Structures are given as C-alpha cells and as structure tokens.
C-alpha cells in the first residue's frame, strides 16, 4: 500500500515503528536476587555493647584505619577443622561483613589460623598465619604474612616463625602485630609453652613475652631485629608517629614510650597501685590499657619470668591531661583497641564464672570464681 508522506496512514505506521524502537529502549526486567541478610545493629545496644556471641574465642581485635569496621580472629567450632578465621564486623556491631577461613590449600583437612590481624593505612593486611593438624597442640607452620590488600588469601609469608635473632633467645611466637609506618611491623617476640596445670584440667597456653621485635619490609627480604631494653615486654602499640612506640613490661604498672630512631625511652603513664599494666594501645591522644585484675608476674622454674594473665580492667588515659578513666564492664578484659578517633574501645571480654568446686580442706563443694577461657568482643564508648 503506497504511503503519501504526511498522511494519517503514514503517521500511524511511523508511530508503530517508532513504538517498536521505543520499546527497545526500555529496560529489561531484572532477575530475582536475594536481599542482604546482615545487620549493622548490635543485639543489645546497652553499654558496653556485646559485639560477639561466639561459643569459641574471638580475639585480637583491631580497627580499620578509617574506623568503619573491626578486624579480629574468630575460632569456628562449627567447622570440622576448628579454623581461626579472619572476621570483620561493622564498627557498631551487627553481622560479620566477612569471615575468611580455609587459608590452606588443604582446606578443612588442617586447622588454619589468622591471628593478630591488622590493616595498614595503605590497606595492607598483616597477620600471624599458622596451620597444623586438626587437634594438634601447637601449629606445625607459622609465619608473619602480609597481603597487598585486605584479602588474607593473597598474603605472602614474610617472616617464618620461630626465628632467632643473634644474641637473643629463640622466639617461637609473635603476638600483637602492629604496623609501624608503611614498611615496618613491631610485635612481641614471645615464647609459648603448653602445660596441663592439674589432672583432668584443660591444657593452658602460656605466652611469655621475651622482647619487642621489628620487622623491616622495605628491602627485598624482611629483616627482623629486637629492640633492646624491652625484655619481658607484655604489649606494644604504635605511637603518634612512625618513629614512636608505646610498650609495657611484665610485672610493671608503667607505660613506656620509645623513639625508635634515637632509642630514647620514657614513661608516659604509671598506673601505680591500680596494678600491672599491659595490652597498651594508643590513638588520637588517648591511651588504653588493661590494668590490674587477675594478673601475676613470677619466675617459673621451667619457663622463667612469666606473666600469668586472665584479664583486667580497661583504662583509658588522656595523654595530654593524664586523666585516667576505668571502663566498667562485665568480667575481665584483655587487649583493648582504641578506634582511630579515640572515642571507642573494643576489647576481649572474659566473663567470670562461678562454679562449685571441691574443697579438700572442708570436704565440701564451695563456690569458686573463675574466668572463662574464651572471649567475646565488647565495645565501650570512651567519653
């Protein structure tokens, strides 16, 4: 049928064709997709906020550099291999953003652990990596690993453990890994022993700090060294600058500051009668540490000088005014970490357990208070 330009017939057909092309310009219907199931709200917002409910251990918390989330190690009893996985929680609590397990090629045929995870300012992840047979007392392979990003699976081992520094006793453990600038890590070089304290008791893992270590990553290979004057170190934290660290020593109530380039050391705070200070962490002009509680420093006939620590009270000190605030919470706490802005503290919380035990003197069951072996994470506000 011929078309006369501009006639109704023509327009109708053009509209038909135009409609078809317009239809092509429409978008397609989306396939179904599952909504996100997580939450950023804590289970109970009452302070201190209990962040985790894991029936096994959650430990080694650290903040992301921007303060948006918390990294920590979470052991998974639900897994056949009981891996200690890398977990990431929103800063306010809620659901884990990620949980990374299975870091070994052998998967669930071995127990793999990510301990002391910490992210650098430029986004690199450092952690202590270990693996071993399921049920083994100690790991068979251990190393400090560094990943170019937040994914631990892409990490490379930079320092095998154990290691020996000339003139120093052999270090068979690394604790409290901290980024000290872009190419340096500081940590506690430690000795780990395993002991069954009594018949039918569970095995204890006893960590004795030997000395602070520094791992220099700036060269082609990592170089490890020990910081003199840090014998029996019980904690270490990065200071306000890349040249400054804070640390504590076993059995000591003081917190020390060291300038790495000069070696100059001074005391920045002394908790005095409050007790032994440890697990120091510094951010935004504030210092957090665990003080007092169930802690003792003694010389063990086999292990030598050893600090026995079941947790204490979290203190936050304003470094400019030296004002000391003890944070109240249920049970005892260890290893607090201040948020980058210094307003929040996340710490491992160990509930106190009251149980009946046999008193050999009276021959009766008497109540006894013990500390839980596995911790959950708690979030404090630090006003």
């Amino acid at each position, binding site marked *: 049928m011929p078309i006369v330009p501009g006639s109704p017939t023509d327009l*109708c*057909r053009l509209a038909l064709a135009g409609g*078809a092309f317009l239809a092509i310009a429409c978008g*397609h*219907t989306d396939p179904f997709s599952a909504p996100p199931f997580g939450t950023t709200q804590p289970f*109970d917002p009452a302070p201190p906020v209990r962040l985790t*409910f894991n029936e096994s251990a959650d430990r080694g918390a650290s903040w992301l550099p921007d303060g948006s989330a918390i990294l920590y190690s979470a052991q998974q009893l639900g897994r056949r291999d009981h891996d200690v996985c890398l977990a990431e929680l929103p800063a306010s609590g*809620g659901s*884990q953003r990620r949980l990374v397990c299975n870091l070994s090629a052998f998967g669930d045929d071995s127990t793999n652990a990510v301990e002391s995870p910490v992210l650098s300012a430029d986004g690199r992840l450092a952690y202590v990596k270990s693996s071993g047979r399921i049920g083994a007392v100690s790991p068979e392979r251990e190393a400090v690993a560094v990943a170019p990003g937040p994914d631990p699976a892409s990490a490379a081992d930079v320092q095998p453990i154990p290691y020996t520094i000339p003139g120093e006793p052999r270090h068979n453990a690394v604790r409290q890994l901290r980024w000290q600038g872009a190419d340096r890590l500081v940590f506690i070089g430690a000795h780990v022993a395993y002991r069954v304290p009594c018949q039918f008791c569970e095995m204890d893992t006893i960590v004795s700090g030997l000395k602070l270590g520094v791992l220099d990553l700036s060269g082609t290979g990592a170089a490890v060294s020990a910081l003199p004057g840090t014998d029996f170190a019980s904690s270490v934290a990065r200071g306000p600058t890349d040249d400054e660290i804070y640390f504590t020593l076993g059995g000591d109530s003081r917190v020390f500051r060291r300038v790495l380039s000069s070696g100059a050391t001074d005391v920045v705070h002394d908790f005095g009668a409050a007790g032994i200070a440890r697990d120091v962490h510094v951010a935004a002009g504030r210092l957090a540490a665990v003080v007092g509680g169930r802690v003792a420093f003694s010389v063990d006939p086999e292990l030598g000088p050893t600090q026995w620590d079941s947790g204490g009270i979290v203190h936050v000190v304003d470094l400019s005014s030296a004002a000391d605030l003890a944070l109240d919470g249920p049970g005892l706490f260890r290893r607090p970490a201040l948020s980058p802005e210094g307003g929040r503290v996340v710490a491992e919380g160990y509930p106190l357990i009251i149980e009946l035990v046999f008193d050999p003197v009276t021959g009766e069951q008497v109540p006894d208070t013990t500390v839980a072996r596995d911790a959950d994470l708690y979030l404090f506000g630090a006003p």
Partner: protein
Amino acid sequence: MMSTRRVCGRALPLAIAGLVYAAGAAAQSEGAVAGRVRESGTARALAGVQVLVDGRVGSVTDTAGEYRVRAVRTGWHRVAARLIGFRGVVLDSVFVRSGATVSANFELEPSAVELAPLVVTAPIDELLDPLATSTEQKITAQDLRDLPVSSLEEAVALSAGAVGQSYRGGRIGEESFILDGLGVKNQLDAATGGLGLRLPPDLLGEASLVTNGFSARYGQALSGLVNVVTRDPGDSWEGRAAVETDRPFGGTLDHGLDRLALRAGGPVAGGVGFVAAVDLAGRLDDDPVNAPLPEDPRDPRTGGPGLLPHNSGEQWNGAAKLVVPLTGGTTLRVLGVHSEDQRLLYDPAYKYALDFAPAQRLRGDLISGHLQLRAGSASLRPLILDLRASRFVREFLRGQLDGAVDYQVGALTGSRFHFVGEELARAQDPAPSSVPGLTRPDLSDQTPWGVPAFFLGGASRGDLGWNRYGETRFQLDGTYGGIRSVDLFFGGEFSDQQVRTYQRVLGFLAAGDTVPLPAISAFSPRNVAGYVEAQTRVADLAVTLGVRYDQYDARTASAGQARGTQRSVSPRFAVSTVLRGATVVASFGRFTQAPDYQFLVDAAFDDTTRTGRFRRGNPNLGFEQATQYEFSVRIRPSEGTSLRMGVYQKRLTGLVASVPLGLNPDSTIFGNADAATARGLELVAERELRNGYGLRLAYTLQDAKATSTDPFLLNRVISVDPTTGDTIRPAHAEFPLDYDQRHTFTLIARGKAPENIGPRLLGVRPIAGLEGAVIVRARSGLPFTRVDSAGVPVSGPPNDSRLPWSSTVDLLVRRPIRLGGTTGGVYLDVRNLLNRRNVVAVRRDTGQPLADEATITGMAEAAYQAHPEPIPYESARYRAGADLNGDGYLAGPDELLPLYLAAARDFVQPIFAYGAPRLARLGIELLF
C-alpha cells in the same frame, strides 16, 4: 506446447509454502533440471534441442529427446528450449531445490518463421518425481521467516522423525551437517557439545533433513544429514534488517531478549557478488523454565518475575560469501562463518553466590572455498567437477569467570568471557599444582536460611574444561553425464583433524592422591573416503546405486594402544517408481561414522545409551554403524494436497558404550558394545498455501530399542519361570534408547489475509495482509531409568519409565508495512502460547519433578547432624526470625532444623524439570 500435466495447474506457492518436499537422490547445494523435448502434435522425440538455464546453454537433447542440466544452483531459474525450425518455449520461474532433479518436459511447435518464444509460468511437481529417492524434508528461508522459529535447528526440529536434534532415535551428533555441499562436523564431542557453528538464518537459502538412504556422497552420519545451502548474492543490492525484543512485555514475559539481524548483498564489480549476514542475540534468561514458584515467601524467587539469574546467553553469528565467476564457466565461492556462543549457567547450588556459578564459551570458525569446473555442458559428455576445501576450528571453554560480566545492551556484552586458568588450559599445562585464582568453595551464608547446607559460595567448584577441534578438509565431487540415462557421481574426501583437550577438577587443590591430574590429550586423526554412485531412470523406474568407502585412523599419542587404520564399505541402494499415481520408493543403506573422539580419551562423559558417568577412554574404538531399510509412498490425493508415508527399520551396531573393565564393577571403559534397533512410521499430510491458508500435519510412530549384553545389566533382568521355578538369565537385554519418543504430532497451519479486507482505523486496515502461522506440537515422553533412594537403579532394564506427554502451541503474526518506499513487517512471535507447564525431566527416585517429603526431611536432618553448632548473633548465618528464645543464638533442633528443612526444600526445587514458559518477542523488519 509443453506438457500441461507437468506444468499447468501447479501453483507457484507450491515451492514457497511447502515445508517438506520429497526431492532428489543427492543432497547437495545444487539440483538438476531434466526432461524430454518432443514435437507438438506428433510426440516425436527431438534431438539436438538446446536447453538453456538462465540464458546459458546447459544441455542438448539426445536422440531420445532427453536432456539433463546438472549443477543448477538452488533457487528460481528460467529454463528454455530452442531448435531451429521450432518456436522456442521458456519456462519461467522453475524452482530448483538442492539435491533434487526437477522434471521439465517441452513440446515445441514447428514454425517456419522465427517467433518470439512462448513464455510459460512453470511450477514443477517434485512430489511424484521418481528420481527423488531420499526422504528429505525441506526448510526454506521463507519458512524461517514465516514460522515461529528463530534458528535453523528449531526449523529442522519440526521435521517428522526429529526429537529436538536427535533423528530417528539416534544420539545427538549422529547426524552430519553439510554446508554448501561440504561436510562440517564436530567429531570431538558432538554427542554433548554441538557443532559450534551457526549460520545466520538470513544467509540461508534452503535446508533439508535427509533421513533415509542418502547419497553415497555423504558419510560421518548414522541418523541423517542436515543439508544447508547458503544464498548467493543477487543481481542487485538488497538486504534486510530486523530487531526483536521482549522488553515491551515486561514481567514474566520479559526474559531479556534482544536480537539484531542484518543482511546485505549484491554485485560488486566484474560479476563478483558478495553477501554477508550477522545475527546477534542475547537473552538474560537463556534457558527459561516454567517451574512453579516456591511456596516459602522467604525464597527470593517467590517474588521474582520468573527470570533465572546468572543464566544469560549471547550468540554472535556472522557469515560472508564471495562469488567470483572465472573464465570458462568456472565459479569460485568462498564462504566464511564465525560463531560465538557464551553463556552463564544457572546452578541451583550457587543460587545465592551467582558470581561463582559456571560459565561456558563456544567458538567456531569456518572458511571454505568451492571451485566448480564444467566441461562439455552443451555436449553429450558433460562433466562437472566440484573441488572444495575448508578449515573448521571449534573451541570450547567452561569454568569460572575471572570477573564480573559487563552487560552493554540487555544480555549482550560485546566482549569475550575470560575464565580463571584459561591460559593454563589452552597451554595444556600438565603441572599438578593448583590453578591460580581458584579457591575452595564453602557453604554459603547468604541464603535466607543461613544454615551451612546445600548452597555453595565463596568460590566455584574449581572445574576447568577446554577443548579444541580443528579440521582441514578437501573434497572432490564429480558428475558425469556421458552415459545415456545415467548420472554418474563420484568423488572423495580427505580430512586431517586435530584434537586437544584439557580437563581439571578441584582446581583449587594440587593434584595428588585424591585429586586427579589434569586430563590432557592431543592427537591428530585422519579420515579418508571415496564414493561412486549411479542414478538412472527408465520410463517411471528410477534406480540409485552407490557405494562408499570410509577409513579413519585416530592416531592417538598412545603408541601401541590405537587400533590403527579402520575401514568400512557402505553400499546404498534405492529404487522408485510410479504406481497408479503414487510414487513408491524402497531404499537400503549402510552408514558408518567414526566415534566421537571424546570417547577415546579419559574423563569423557555420557555414552550412547546410558548417561552421567565418568569413564576411561579407549583409543581402540572402531566405527559405529547403521543399516537402514525404508519404504515410502508419496501421493497427491488432489491438486494442492499431498500425502507421504514411510516406514523404516534401522539396525545400529558398534555403538559406543561403557563396558566393565576387569572385575571391578566401578571400573569401566568405552567400547563398541551396544546395538540398537529403531523402527518407525512417518506420515506427512499437507495442504499447500492456497486461498489464504495451508496446513501440514506430521506424525511419527517410533520404537527405538538398545540391545545390551552387559553382564551387570543382565543381572537386573533375571526372572523366574513361574512354572518350573527356573532362574532365567537372558543372553541380552533390550531397553528403549534415550531418544525413543514413541509419538510425535506436529501441525503447522499458515494463513494470510487479503490485502483489502477489514475495517479502516485511522486510514489503515489493521488486518489487511496479515500473515499468521501456528505450530501445534504434542509428544509422548522420553524414557528414563528409575532409581531407589540410594541412587541405585531399581530392578529391571534401563529406561523402563517414561516422562509424561508434552505439548506446545506457537504462534507468529506478521503485519506487512511500508515505510517511505521500504517494505517490511512488524511481527509478534509467541512460543508456548498456552503457557503449558511441560515436564521435561524428573527425579529418578520419585519419577516426579519434586522430591518427596521423606527425602527432604532426610536431607535436612543429615545437614543438621553435620552442623549442629549454634549460630551466634554476629554470624552472617544468624536469622533473627528463627531465634525463638531471643538469646542471640540459633541453637538446637527447635531453632535450627526448620531452617535446614527450608534450605532443603529450596535446594531440591525442580527448576530445570520444566520446559520453557510462554515466551514472546516483538520484531520489526525492513527489507531494502
């Protein structure tokens, strides 16, 4: 005058509208025109008459007045007869089909003066031609445009005897694909992998499915051959552009379809012609299903419109053809075809971690050349030689994508998928180390149920598969007409093939004790074939007799293992005649094909009669063979109607199957162990498109049974004689073949409204010129094997149960339009118009798509027992709604088991047990 019986009254639409015609003995890209020339009034045979096709002398009649013009390209031609002293006759519009001999008889009137030739429109009746001895069902380019089909494969599937891409009970891949007279076959994994090459439908000239004693010229096939002739460039530039989409429909009718088809062709210079076509298609849900929605509102599919995610597919097909006339009647044709098919594969286990579900990519390239040499066309000893050469390469990849898919338009990405480990696979790296980039998957925590069960996440399964098949083929075909009433066909072919495969499982682990090493193979088989065939006709009796020789040597790298060169001789015979107006054809043929090369190497899947296992390859495999007998009758009850009926019996031997290896029942190897018998009846009744409508009804009755002597199988069919109490152990067992579809009905109805009917709306008659086609299909169910709850086949032979019947109604309505002098059309294509929910698969344990409650409960309880641990609040698995006591933990069977049950119910949803739902597409095309 010409013979009115042959010429008059056979309407032009006969050639256009008929979906199926019987045709000539040879299936190829060309046909022939033959007949007699007599003197009008005396019936005296006229010798020396020049017969011209499109103005060129094609033949000269002999003393009996007979002539034959060979190697006429498929399509419309003008055939003329002239002799000094007689008035010439021109038959206008003679349609020549590939492989068919069109009969055109002339009667010339004596004339002392030279008169203008008499021009007659000349439809030809091929149905009754006794020279057409093969059972051939045709598809024209017009059919592809007029029917609700989108591809050649879909059109061929409408043929009687076809079950999808399986023919006469045969396995997929037992057919051969002939493109412009040249064989193209995926000899590596045709049973499971497809050809890998798709011709854009716009470049199709004509196609046909040949299923009986096809010409000795063709081998490498047991069940039939699909013969495709591409179109030649026309005398002037012309083209077509079409766009299709389902976007306007929205909701459940929008499956994300977009398609663009373009074609252009015409003369270039100096008689050289060029034609090219591209066909781009993408669909976000490329394998749509009509599965019922889940009942649990937490399942995201409940609220979804029906599209499956991570199920998109895109195909890019392009082809170009160059026709170069050389000197002396020689023509060179060069054809190139490129196909890419890449798709994401929805995996129910990765429903909630779609990025890690598998994907695959298939790529095929073909370049072929055809040189035709003619000698003595106008003499009594015409000789035509066709020399063809081709290079075909097919590459397949499957694994995990190494990045997110970047969609550009709908499902079209415009880029190739890249897979993790692709370079390793292509390099056939034998190293046992893990594949970089692959990690171990875990149980997903992103499901609505949270619990660690059934659904995977975090990583893919770690599978990586790659194979590459290449073939260089040379083919020479000759036609000699120097023997009176006999056409002699002869020729041979040589193909050099290259097979490379790589397969890796659990690629996130290093190969070792429990992880198999990469399965790698590299070998270069070689095939040689030759044939000779003669076709003669005496009065109404036509006889075709041929013999074919095939030889293949796998030449595997395993020295001493391969059997070496294997040979086979295959006779073909057909006789036909006309009895009381009916053309009767009886044929016999023996056919051989080399086995799929995937059966020669380890880690191959599937076999002829039983599926789903992992077996050891066997480099010693020999030919698979078939012997077929067929009897067919073709009649024309009235003008414009036709009826064709055929019965056949085909015996298949040496079929590849797995056989026990030693005494270990779990260890098997491929062998030429199975035999089968397929027999059937095919009935096609047709009314040509006349007076506005046409009909075609095809019915197939089929019985295809395998015969096996597998001792493990025989143990399942032991019976006890009720009289004697004797245990009867049969010597062999018979059971249906996988593609044994007993009944198939296909009804095709077409209609066209006159140009001037219907009311006017805004100056337009909406229904004027409207064209429509409906395809109604009903099929009985395919067989399957029942198993018990442990997955062990229940007593009895395999495939002793059947799926239910299925049916579909497809519709296409087209409204022609003209836009500024350009013609075209707007069309609506709807498949499964009634939205029937067809069951295409079932669980072998229940015989139904759904699992029973006991199975679901058992799965849930087993999963709970594997992971009874509490789920804490901070876990991504925690679901607040399931925390009945609000303590921050999901713990114990009261809180956890309902989640495991819901997860199990979700996981066993029979998504792919159902066929496609109602699908619609709106298209617009312009012809220029």
